[in-house]
Structure formats: structure tokens, C-alpha cells
């Protein structure tokens, strides 16, 4: 009675609840629901703006929460199935009774003429071996069983696939928690500090390589030197698709800009200022609100019929820096600075001569740290192996037993995936065995 053993039934019930809960949490049904949920939410998220979707959905606690829950489900499922799958793959039950064989879904009974177990099993073994099976024979209480298997590694497919997904998620999480991303850049000679990374970047050279077709955006290469506390820790060349990697950090070339060298000379007193101007930057020309707003640098300047300036291609044949002169907050006129052609502008403090003396290329970088990369990469390789094992191997097994009384062979097969194929194979094996029997 329950009262006589207080505590025990209660404990048992708890265990039951816990194991039921674990069973639910590790179930495939829950997995399917979670994956479908992720799919539906993602569909809705892609219909809006990407930026909004990233902020409001993909990075939200609940989306990441569903993902974490899916990962937990997968982890529990993988743990629960680990031993059974290993057992199934590496320690298959080789011995089966005739009645167990006849309970398999794919099976045959072959009636033989001669009553000779050894000869019959030898023929079976020969046939199976010739069909690429690994064949063995075991003897149990009910006599010998021939056991044959092919592509047994295929049983591991789902396990490896699931483990690889967990590794990928782990790598992504680790990378996100330990990583950073900063944007920066500059021209040759510039230095900047990467605060989150605790290192400094010096750009020692920037050069542009035109494509064969000058209308195609050229490639820009930049040489960088990385120092930490004054000591060099890495150096190399960065260009598109060729980032520089060191100690889990990466410097990517994301784009390039033109930087114009402009000399501003006061016509009155000859006082000179040399400035480097980036597109969309501004220079104050006096204290009364006269501003030169830089629009864009054109390497090969021209205008279309509507008077809209554009660059014919990337060849530096007619460099022009286009800007707007702004007085008291109002745009008053366009300024086009051609290379080495001075332009005089009236300001409250007298006339200024603007001269475009040259231009340079600035490299723009994205600097990131991702320590999860090796984990992600191993996960990715494992995923492909796991899926290959799942879908390109067709693991299958046959058990064969000789029935002395009726001079019959009991053959049964099992395959986790392709029952139809197994049936066809058994049909083929049968005819091969029978034709050997006639020999």
C-alpha cells in the first residue's frame, strides 16, 4: 500500500514526469514543430525591410530563444539516440532465429532440393559476398545464421548530421559572444586603432588595379601592418575576397573611396592650406558660413544631356572633384575642380583659390573577430559527411538461416530507408542463389 512505503510512489511518479518531459523535449514531433515555426517566422520577416527584420526578428530574444530551444531538442535527441545508434552500427545482432527472420518486412523462403546445410549456406555466403556484402556466420542455440551487411556506416548518418548541426550552432554562439565588428579605413600613411581588438592598423600602401574593361569597378589592394603595444603582430595585403587573417581577427576590404588633395590659397596674403577631402565631406572657407560641400570625385568626368555629371569609366583621364558652394545654409553654385586648374571663390574674408593637386585611394575595411570559425568549419565538414552517409549510402543487412526439416532457406533483410530497393535486391539474390543451387 502506498501509505506503508511513504515517499517511494511519489518519487517514482516524479521520475516518470521527468522522463516524460525529457521524452517530449527530445522528440522529433517537437523538432518538426520548432523547425516549422522558425520557417514561418522567417518567411514573414523576409517580407519586410532587411534591417528591420534583423533588429526586430533575427536578433530578438524570442527568435534566438526558439533557436536555442530547437538546439536543446536536438541535443537531447542526439544524446538519447547515441548509444542505440552506435550499438546498431557496430554491434548488430548477428544471430536471429528462423521465426525472427520471418517477422522481418522483407523476407523469402527458398525451397532447396538438396538437404545439405553446409553446402546451402556456403552458396548463400558466396552469393552475398559477390554482391559486395560483408558476410559472417555465427552459431547460436538454434544453429548457424549467415549475417551479411553493406554500407553499415550509413546508420551513422543522422547522428553525425545532428551532431554537426549542434557544433555549427555552438561555433556561431561562441563566435558571436567573443567577437566584434568595426568599420574603418584610410589612405596610405594612415593609422587607426581597433578598440575592441586592442590593436593598431597602419596602412602602408594603397594601389588600384584596373580591370581589362575600365568600366568595371577596379580592385584596390592595400598593405597593412598590425601592431599591438608597439610590436608587429601581422602584416599583409588586403583586397576584395582576400582578407588578412590573424589570431581570429580578420581585416576585410569592403570598398574604396577617392580622397582629393586640395590646396586652398588666400589670394590676398598667399597663405596656403593643404587639405585631404573625402566625398561628402565639408570644408569651412570662412567664419561667415561659407562652406564647400564635397559631392563626389569623378576619375573620368563627363556630363550627360541633362547636365548630370558622371564618370565614363574608372580611368583617371579627367579627374574632377564636384562640390556645392553653400552660403548661410543655401546652396549658391556648383564647383567643379579640375586637376591643376585653379578656381577662385569669393568669401567674406576675401578671395580663395582652390586647386585640385591630386587624388588618392582610400581603402575601407570591416574588422572583425570570429573565434568560432574553426568550430563552424568542422561542423560544416561533418554536416556534409553526415548527409552523404544519410542519403548516398544505403545500409542494409540480411540474415539467412537453414531449416533442416523442410530443406528451406529463410532469408530476411532490413534497411532503414529503402525497403523497395531491398525487396528488389532480395529478388535478385534469390535468383542468383537458386541458379547456384542448380549447378
Amino acid at each position, binding site marked *: 500500500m502506498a501509505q506503508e512505503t511513504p515517499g517511494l510512489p511519489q518519487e517514482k511518479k516524479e521520475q516518470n514526469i521527468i522522463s516524460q518531459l525529457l521524452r517530449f523535449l527530445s522528440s522529433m514531433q517537437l523538432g518538426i514543430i520548432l523547425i516549422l515555426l522558425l520557417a514561418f517566422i522567417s518567411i514573414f520577416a523576409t517580407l519586410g525591410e532587411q534591417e528591420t527584420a534583423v533588429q526586430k526578428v533575427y536578433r530578438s530574444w524570442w527568435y534566438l530563444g526558439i533557436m536555442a530551444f530547437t538546439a536543446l531538442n536536438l541535443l537531447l535527441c542526439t544524446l538519447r539516440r547515441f548509444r542505440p545508434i552506435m550499438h546498431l552500427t557496430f554491434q548488430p545482432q548477428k544471430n536471429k532465429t528462423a521465426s525472427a527472420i520471418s517477422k522481418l518486412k522483407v523476407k523469402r523462403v527458398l525451397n532447396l532440393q538438396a538437404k545439405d546445410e553446409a553446402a546451402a549456406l556456403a552458396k548463400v555466403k558466396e552469393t552475398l559476398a559477390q554482391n559486395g556484402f560483408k558476410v559472417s556466420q555465427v552459431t547460436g542455440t538454434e544453429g548457424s545464421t549467415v549475417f551479411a551487411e553493406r554500407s553499415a556506416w550509413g546508420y551513422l548518418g543522422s547522428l553525425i548530421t545532428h551532431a554537426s548541426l549542434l557544433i555549427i550552432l555552438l561555433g556561431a554562439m561562441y563566435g558571436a559572444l567573443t567577437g566584434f565588428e568595426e568599420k574603418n579605413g584610410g589612405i596610405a600613411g594612415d593609422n587607426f586603432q581597433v578598440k575592441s581588438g586592442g590593436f593598431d592598423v597602419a596602412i602602408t600602401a594603397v594601389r588600384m588595379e584596373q580591370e581589362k574593361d575600365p568600366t568595371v569597378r577596379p580592385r584596390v589592394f592595400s598593405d597593412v601592418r598590425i601592431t599591438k603595444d608597439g610590436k608587429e603582430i601581422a602584416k599583409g595585403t588586403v583586397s576584395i575576397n582576400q582578407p588578412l587573417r590573424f589570431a581570429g581577427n580578420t581585416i576585410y576590404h*569592403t570598398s574604396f573611396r577617392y580622397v582629393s588633395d586640395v590646396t586652398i590659397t588666400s589670394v590676398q596674403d598667399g597663405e596656403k592650406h593643404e587639405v585631404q577631402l573625402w566625398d561628402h565631406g565639408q570644408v569651412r572657407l570662412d567664419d561667415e558660413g561659407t562652406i564647400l560641400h564635397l559631392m563626389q570625385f569623378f576619375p573620368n568626368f563627363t556630363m550627360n544631356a541633362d547636365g548630370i555629371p558622371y564618370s565614363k569609366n574608372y580611368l583617371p583621364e579627367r579627374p574632377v572633384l564636384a562640390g556645392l558652394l553653400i552660403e548661410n545654409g543655401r546652396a549658391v553654385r556648383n564647383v567643379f575642380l579640375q586637376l591643376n586648374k585653379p578656381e577662385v571663390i569669393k568669401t567674406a574674408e576675401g578671395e580663395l583659390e582652390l586647386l585640385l593637386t591630386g587624388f588618392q585611394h582610400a581603402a575601407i575595411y570591416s574588422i572583425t573577430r570570429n573565434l568560432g570559425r574553426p568550430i563552424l568549419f568542422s561542423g560544416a565538414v561533418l554536416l556534409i559527411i553526415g548527409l552523404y552517409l544519410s542519403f548516398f549510402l544505403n545500409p542494409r543487412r540480411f540474415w539467412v538461416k537453414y531449416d533442416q526439416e523442410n530443406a528451406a532457406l529463410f532469408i530476411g533483410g532490413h534497411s532503414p530507408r529503402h525497403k523497395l530497393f531491398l525487396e528488389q535486391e532480395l529478388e535478385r539474390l534469390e535468383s542468383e542463389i537458386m541458379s547456384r543451387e542448380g549447378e
Partner: protein
Amino acid sequence: MSGYIPVSATAIFWENTFFNIASALYILAMFFYLTHLFGRKQLGSFASIVLRIAFLVHSVFLIMRTINLQRVPFVGPYEFGNMFIWATALVYLWTEWRLKDKYFAVGAFLTPLITLYIVYLTVVPRLIPAVRISRLHQQLRPVLQSPWLKIHVSASIFGYAGFTLAFAAAIMWLVKNKAGEQGVLAHTLPQKNILEEYMYRAAGFGFLFQSIMIITGAIWADTSWGSYWRWDPKEMWSLITWFVYAVYLHARFTQGWTGLRTVALVMVGWVAMLFTWVGVAWLLTGIHSFG
């Protein structure tokens, strides 16, 4: 500013001619496969021969385009569409060869899908001006000049080919279901369980390549954009497609789902795949919108 590769008018003429002949032959193959399906059994192997010739001519077209471009034709809707049609024909012909002549009926469902893809490349842009399928010979932008492009695109055309094949089998299943056990179709169409097996194998094949596509895409993005996952619509839709097929494979393998439910999942997966290919480019925006 975007650069085009100068190609002589003759070269363009021959390239287009081979495309047109290949398209016509694919459509002709469809006609013979359908005739086979509706009872003219002897036309099955003839349809297969026409399809093989179509595939060869299409291969010649791709080689010509490769020569004209001086690179593999892997970029933009026109080139990708052609590669994808080519891969679909290849995978189907391979299964036909593997299964011998038992399943010519599948061809009657696959070739209409190939025709549909050809229509997308040729007729749809004329009807819907917003859909621009340019045949110009474009230079590769530096960001696309990467060996990962080749691996990424090769994987994706085979992924899409597998899903197309699975979809063809799904439609066959529906037709078989409707046709029942009487009439011409009852004899020419394989059994439902055979179709389900075919569908499962094709989906598994597609799933492996779709996974390789996502992984190589991520690796490539990591070397060029600075992060392996940007949540852009094309990425998300390939993930959604992948989720749908994952659900299908699990439902079939572990829950023992069969019949209409699995057929429906495969069809939803194909729609998601098509949207990843076509819908994202014209309806949604993102860094991938170059196709």
C-alpha cells in the same frame, strides 16, 4: 557603370541559336514523353533519345557561352537558369540510365518543368517588363571573382535539380492518385509507393547539395563580405527551403509519413525553392539581388 565583354555578332548568333535549338528539343522531348504517357509506349525510348540530344546541344550552348564570356556562365538569372536546367536534365538522365527504361513516365512530368523554366527565361520577361533576364555578356565584378563562386553555384544547381525531380514525382503521385487503377495512366504510371521512394531519394539528393550550397555560400560571404551570415532574403529563403525539406525527410523517415502529407511537403519545398530563385530577385531586395 558595369562592364560588358565584347563578343562578335557571329558568336552571339551561334550562342543564341544553340540555346533555341536546345529549348526546342527539350519541348519536343516533352511532347514524346507525354505521348508515351498516354499510351504510345514505343515512343518512350525515342523521347529519351530526344532529351539526350537536347542535353548535348544545351551543353554545346554552355560551352559556347563559356568561350564567349571567358569564364564559367554562373552569374545572373539567364546563366544560372541555364545551368540549372542543364543540371536537371543531367540528373534525370542519370536516373533513367540507372533505373533502365522502367520510369520513362517520370520524363513526362520532368520535361514540362524544364519547359516551365525555359518559359521563365524567354517568355516571362516579355510579358512582365519588371523581370529582366539579360543575355548580355557581363564581366565579373571583383566580389564575384572567387573560386567559391564555382563551388557554390555548382552545388546549388544540383540541389535545385534534385528538388525539381522530387516535385515531378510529387505531381505524378497526385495524378496517379486521381487516375486510380483504371485507364491508360493506371498502366503507365508507377505505383504510388515507388513514386514516394523516388521522391524521397530525389529530395535527399537535393538536400545534400542545398546544404553544400548554404555552407559554401557562407564561407564565401565570410571571405568577401566580412561575415558568413547577413540574414539577407536570399540566404533566408534558402534556409526556409532547407527547413521544409528537413521537415519532409524527418516526417517520412521517423514518423513514417506517407501519401498526401509528404507529397504536400515536397510541393511546398519546391515552391520555396522557386521563390528563392525567382521571387527573391524580383520581389524582395538584398545584396544577392544580382541573381
